[in-house]
């Protein structure tokens, strides 16, 4: 709409645009069309919000990579199942020496990569050595930190020696960052991923979709789906119209929570609210006074009304958390009672720290997801109620990574930490929120070398309690996995213990 002096056309254009703005609302509000099946019964179209930057899970941190290729194209020695438990994958079984330092993996026989080459212990040695190498671009090199040496005893036996016992080692090997790759194709996996999984890579139309096709040479039971397409739809607001029209057939994680109300009452769709590993926090920058003052952080924690937040920003889906730990984990301890919503207590703590109403003014950087944008609006209102002024700054992901995550240039931010069991980020030096407590670091250090499950659980509980007492961040809620799919589909994961859309067991039922 040009602001031009050509008066008649401009005016007509203006009126037209205005009319369209209004009419759009009216048209879109009309009842949705009957969904046409987007694909025949052996094909599936999955909707995703973010497009992966490339397709090599061993060379990038983006969760979207795993969401396409994990368990579909690539497999590791172990894998993480829908319940979060470690399961055998390319390693059929394994033994661990009594000192916990030597792992002997017996690899599955008759496994081939999609390019026809056989998977042997030599490939496993290559994959693990490549991931932990000095010049490795693996985004999670810490997973392999305990490995001292990897060797192949024969074609199907792999020995991994650790420098110290590591309780999570088998779990670590199940991550997407630890999948098995072949020396011949490792360099080109970013654009043409070659794995051992039930689906082989078909095509990638950038900006639109990735296509996978059933692999005829898969070692396990062949999947029911012959073709799978991941469609990238960056606009969450288009997701409701998309799913109602039958394209895509499924969202593992539906990006528009407000649409769930509509979909739940529609028998054509299954709406499954599961759990994720995403602890959603109000990150506070401990480098910036007065956020280094525990009284101020506690005041902010008291000011947050979690139930209202979950109701308003998440439409009721989400479990309140009191520390940085997933409530569905056995070692979870409920600390949500430590800072109940109490504006008076918050004001008192602020006064104690020498801050009267209006004295404290903070910025709040919000990345694009609706949990952050909507949640941020509510938290700004809740902090305002205890006399803290908040300036909301919406940012795109790239800017968030640059300014908040790497640049540490922020006061407050809202983000979900989606990696499993990632409480150890609070022990990292120079992590973006700048939390530093030697007691906490000691607990994590002990945890690293503790193998006994009960002792580990006790240490996890201690770590959670320290974070809560320090009010290290504002702990908001566990991000729900809001799965929506055609009711005739079965086999999609209900929970999200790792970022994955495992399609192996997915089938149409009619």
């Amino acid at each position, binding site marked *: *709409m*040009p*602001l*031009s*002096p050509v*008066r008649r056309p*401009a*005016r007509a254009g*203006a*009126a037209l*645009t*205005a*009319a369209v*703005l*209004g009419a*759009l*609302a*009216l048209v*879109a*509000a009309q009842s*949705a069309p009957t969904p046409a099946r987007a694909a025949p019964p052996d094909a599936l179209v999955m909707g995703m919000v973010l497009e992966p930057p490339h397709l090599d899970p061993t060379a990038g941190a983006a969760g979207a990579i795993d969401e396409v290729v994990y368990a579909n194209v690539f497999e590791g020695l172990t894998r993480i199942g829908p319940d979060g438990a470690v399961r055998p994958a390319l390693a059929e079984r394994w033994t661990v020496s009594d000192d916990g330092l030597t792992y002997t993996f017996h690899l599955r026989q008759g496994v081939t990569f999609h390019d026809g080459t056989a998977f042997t212990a030599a490939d496993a040695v290559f994959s693990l050595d490549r991931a932990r190498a000095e010049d490795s671009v693996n985004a999670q090199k810490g997973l392999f930190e305990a490995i001292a040496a990897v060797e192949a005893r024969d074609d199907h036996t792999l020995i991994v020696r650790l420098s110290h016992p590591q309780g999570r080692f088998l779990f670590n090997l199940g991550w997407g960052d630890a999948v098995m790759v072949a020396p011949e194709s490792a360099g080109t996996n970013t654009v043409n991923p070659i794995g051992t999984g039930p689906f082989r890579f078909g095509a990638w139309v950038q900006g639109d979709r990735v296509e996978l096709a059933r692999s005829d040479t898969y070692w396990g039971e062949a999947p029911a789906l012959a073709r799978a397409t991941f469609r990238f739809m960056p606009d*969450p*607001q288009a997701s*409701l119209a998309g799913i*109602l029209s039958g394209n895509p057939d499924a969202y593992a994680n539906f990006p*528009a929570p*407000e*649409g769930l*109300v*509509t979909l739940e009452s529609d028998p054509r769709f299954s709406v499954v609210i599961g759990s994720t590993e995403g602890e959603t926090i109000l990150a506070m920058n401990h480098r910036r006074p007065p956020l280094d003052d525990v009284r101020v952080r506690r005041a902010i924690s008291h000011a947050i009304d979690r139930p*209202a937040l979950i*109701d*308003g920003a998440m439409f009721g889906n989400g479990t309140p958390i009191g520390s940085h730990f997933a409530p569905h984990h056995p070692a979870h301890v409920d600390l949500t009672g430590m800072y109940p919503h109490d504006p008076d207590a918050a004001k008192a703590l602020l006064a104690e720290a020498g801050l009267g109403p209006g004295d404290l003014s903070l910025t709040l950087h919000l990345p694009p997801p*609706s949990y952050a944008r*909507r949640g941020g*609006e*509510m938290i*700004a*209102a809740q902090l*305002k109620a205890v006399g803290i002024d908040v300036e*909301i*700054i*919406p940012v795109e992901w790239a800017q968030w990574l640059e300014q908040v995550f790497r640049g540490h240039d922020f006061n407050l931010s809202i983000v979900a930490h989606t990696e499993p069991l990632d409480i150890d980020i609070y022990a990292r030096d120079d992590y973006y929120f700048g939390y530093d407590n030697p007691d906490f670091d000691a607990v994590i250090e002990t945890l690293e070398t503790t193998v006994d499950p009960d002792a580990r659980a006790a240490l996890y509980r201690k770590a959670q309690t320290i974070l809560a007492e320090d009010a290290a961040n504002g702990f908001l809620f566990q991000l729900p996995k809001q799965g929506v799919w055609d009711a005739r589909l079965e086999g999609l994961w209900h929970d999200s213990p790792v970022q994955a859309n495992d399609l192996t067991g997915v089938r149409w039922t009619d």
Partner: protein
Amino acid sequence: MASPRRLSAAGWIGAAIAAVVILTALVSLVWTPHDPTVMDVANKLSGPGAAHPLGTDHFGRDTLSQLMVGARVSIAVSVVAVGLGVGLGVPLGLLAAARRGWIDEAVMRFNDLAFAFPALLTAVLITALLGPGAINAILAIGLFNIPVFARVARGAALPLWKRPFIQAARLAGRGRTRISLDHILPNIAGTLIVQATIQFALAILAEAGLSYLGLGSQPPEVSWGRMLNEAQTFLFLEPRLAVLPGLAIVLTVLGLNLLGDGLRDRLDPRLETGLETRREGG
């Protein structure tokens, strides 16, 4: 000379709509049914009723109060943006008409340059560079009003310089600046007022567009564009939330356009003395 005309029926309707919007905005300064930024999640998405005449949004904020305050924001942004355009554009146009020569060329080629870019796109660029916010939205919209008013002022002033009464003033030894202010400006005021009305409607639309894209007013500030944006995901659930701000924008823009049309018929000297102007302005 044609006899002075009266405002047409459509013009009166436009004036009435504009008056209602302005009145609403003024009332919102002293009273709204509820605080438009106060959230009441327990009452979210409730339909129209006694407590909330137009219902509430997804945070339980009162829609009527938001619409009222939104009118104020729209008008405030547009007044300042158009003011910026008039304040800088008209002097530039008068200067170009009075001096001609290289000054005229410089001003007009700069105008051409500004017109070469779609306004909304450049507004998006400006807010992307300076950061989103109401002030930057005003700047972005205002910037694009400058060449509009410069061009209109110059176009209207040029033929006047050839008219006998201006030439008389020049013979009497008055300076170009004085003549521009004392004689040219009053004679082109009608044209400018008409243009301002039109630009005002466009500015309201541009503000709504920028806010809709998340580049204008930031939460917790209220604006019609933001209301539309937030309502978008609730279209299937609560179409009311999108229809109401949409209607507000449509009606306001329509009203201002009708008013502008009416005022032009009434005020624009080029329509009154069309033949003569065309010959002289050539």
